[in-house]
């Protein structure tokens, strides 16, 4: 019986090697991989890479650190509340090294407030490295990189307490946020902090837009680490993102034209859906 069932449903590989319906999916991964590879290779050999437009929210990071320096108050950083398997948290790591270096350079306190033990461990190491690279290993204070709680609302409570006691001048929130976004942004705004918020969680974005001075929307935060690094190789990967979007745009235009000209034709949809 088992054998019969297996016989009857033995799947057939598509194009010899792929699972059903995954050819186009894999092609997308491959295309972006190749584009990024090419752009990185161009950058490595010193060829020209297109410039990246200014992203106000990211330019404001240095401004915020500058203001905290002038006021002699700390900069707070919150990497969202999710763990290292979330791409947004990974994007936040790229930002940490930039902020930590700036803080080390200007001798401003850098407070990183964590809700998950794993990003906490990573951020501590990145910060230590950043202070080392700026030649200020003595200024690094491990107590400023804090794990507050793994529970969302207990974490919020602890952050509010820190906001009230240590009065940071700037609050940079960057990563995967949920219900706490509203509470954090409201508290920070009411205390007159300069606030920069970035997340790809669309249900929390509006609160960052309405309550923060600068908001990074969706993809902008995935480009942040590359943008702040100002390295041609990393710029190359951002150019790759743009190319993929151009391809998506063109496919949509072609698809819409086809749908308009011959509404019954499902040719393109069949290809994309079928393979």
């Amino acid at each position, binding site marked *: 019986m088992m054998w019969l069932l297996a016989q009857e449903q033995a799947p057939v590989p598509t194009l010899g090697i792929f699972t059903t319906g995954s050819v186009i999916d894999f092609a997308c991964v491959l295309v972006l991989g190749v584009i990024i590879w090419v752009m990185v290779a161009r950058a490595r050999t010193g060829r020209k890479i297109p410039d990246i437009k200014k992203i106000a929210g990211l330019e404001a990071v240095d401004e915020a650190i500058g203001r905290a320096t002038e006021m002699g108050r700390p900069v707070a950083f919150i990497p969202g509340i999710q763990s290292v398997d979330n791409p947004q948290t990974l994007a936040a790591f790229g930002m940490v090294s930039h902020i930590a270096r700036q803080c080390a350079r200007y001798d401003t306190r850098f407070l990183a407030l964590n809700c998950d033990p794993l990003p906490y461990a990573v951020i501590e190491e990145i910060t230590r490295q950043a202070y080392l690279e700026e030649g200020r290993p003595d200024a690094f204070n491990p107590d400023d990189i804090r794990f507050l709680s793994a529970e969302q609302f207990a974490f919020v409570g602890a952050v509010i307490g820190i906001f009230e006691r240590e009065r940071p001048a700037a609050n940079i929130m960057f990563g995967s946020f949920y219900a706490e976004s509203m509470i954090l942004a409201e508290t920070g705004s009411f205390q007159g902090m300069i606030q920069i918020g970035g997340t790809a969680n669309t249900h929390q974005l509006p609160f960052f837009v309405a309550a923060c001075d600068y908001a990074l929307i969706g993809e902008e935060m995935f480009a942040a680490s590359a943008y702040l690094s100002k390295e041609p190789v990393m710029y190359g990967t951002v150019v790759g993102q*743009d190319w993929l979007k151009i391809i998506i745009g063109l496919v949509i235009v072609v698809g819409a034209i086809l749908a308009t000209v011959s509404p019954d034709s499902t040719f393109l949809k069949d290809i994309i859906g079928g393979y």
Partner: protein
Amino acid sequence: MHPHISHDLAIWCQAICTLAVYTYLYKDNPIFRVAENVFLGLATTYIFVFQFFNYIKPAVIEWIWTNGEYHYILAILLGLAIFFRYVPSLSWIARYPMSFWVGYGTGYTLAFWPAVWLDQVTASFVALNSLQNILIFVGVLCTLVYFFFTLAKENPVVAGVAEVGKWYIMIALGSAFGNTVLYRWNLFLTRANMLLFKWLGFAS
């Protein structure tokens, strides 16, 4: 409208917990802080106990001991390696589990997301024969342009298109905002119903 207060211990416990949290609205106070710390303690433990009996225990007893799938011993060792971060000279060993989790997450993004978002692309193949479809078509393209990082913003055409994209984005976020506000109040309403009807026993 006459209340009949509950005699159920469970309901009382729920009501006390709920009220303890709402004392925070007046101001931060000892009752809230007790509730908060109890909550934190329970939360930390619950997640661990749940994971322990669903993964660690079966791994040791069923998968390794009974089924002889000895490779799971490596998984356990990998997990334990994270504790090397407390040994300064060997803290680099803790990078191994970290890189495994990051790799898994990365692979997951690459493997499972394309199928879902490709359908979002094909869904934009709308026949341009109604105002609604045209607005969707234009909106998706303009929003994509807004996220272009390399196109020159000085170019008035690009800037104009990106501006339209920004309008779309703000309308989408405005919708999210409105719905979220109502949702949060609905949550409170659930708590209020619990207090009023289950605990105090008003007839609904």
